[in-house]
């Protein structure tokens, strides 16, 4: 994996986009791995009886996708400091989702290179259903 350095990041830079498409099988795997067994994520009849169009993606799985967006981009020596997301709209399985982000600030704090990003998960129609923010510490060249 490529390493990102503080000096190479500029405000406005794009975070490398991460495409995702969650199958119903992935929702079941995530239910098992996370311990979230709420049936709206794998039982279609249950979801419909709760007024949903069908099973929906766990908010926390979308949160995980956005975490991966950032950890893939920052590289192994980067450190994720803060990750926040808002669930504005539900997302459905088998939709072509894309996690995206942009650098909004960079500064050196106590000798550490801090970079802030706006991030969001977009649905197949391009709508940001799950916006958020990430703060990372990046290594500096020569240190």
């Amino acid at each position, binding site marked *: *994996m490529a390493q990102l350095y503080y000096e190479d990041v500029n405000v406005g830079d794009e975070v490398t986009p991460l495409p*995702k498409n969650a199958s119903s099988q*992935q929702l079941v*795997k*995530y239910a*098992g*791995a*996370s*311990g*979230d067994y709420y049936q709206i994520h794998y039982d279609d009849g249950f979801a419909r009886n709760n007024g949903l169009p069908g099973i929906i993606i766990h*908010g*926390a*799985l979308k*949160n*995980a*996708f956005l*975490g*991966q967006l950032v*950890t*893939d981009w920052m590289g*192994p*020596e980067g*450190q*994720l*400091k*803060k*990750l*926040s*997301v*808002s*669930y504005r709209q539900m997302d459905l399985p088998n939709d072509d989702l894309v996690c995206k982000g942009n650098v909004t600030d960079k500064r050196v704090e106590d000798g550490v290179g801090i970079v802030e990003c706006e991030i969001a998960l977009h649905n197949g129609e391009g709508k940001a259903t799950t916006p*958020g923010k990430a703060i990372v510490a990046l290594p500096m060249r020569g240190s």
Partner: protein
Amino acid sequence: MPDESVITDEMRSHLDVESDPITYDVEKGAVVKFAQAIGDTNPLFQDEPAARNGPYGGIVAPPTFLRSLIAGEPKEEFPRPFPNNLDGGSEYEFFEPIRAGDRITVTKAIVDLSERQGRLGTMLFTTAETRYVNQLGQLAATQRTTGISYATPAEEE
């Protein structure tokens, strides 16, 4: 603002009351399974030889793995005023890596209550903070989650 607040003294009595702590072993297999479930192929999260040569000297957990370390139930159930509940969002802060082999103690408490009028009528926002402390007594991470409780218009009639 509504004339009468939906936030009662009984609700306020739940503020800052921590759940009983639960301690989890962070098993390597569970970390790998979580990484696979979210479709994350980062070697730091699942490839032991590669991770050993990385910055942590071994496998670490993906950031949101903490979600699987579920806090205990509150000592008394929070009296939600409305039948419908939504997960509004999540905010993690990370202070220490979560390594395979760590023992993480999890507690959770409601830390804030607020209300707002919106398209779903009166909505109660419940902010809870989950704290993850490792076997060295270090606060490794916190997660703040916001629950939204609301009455559907049909049920307000």
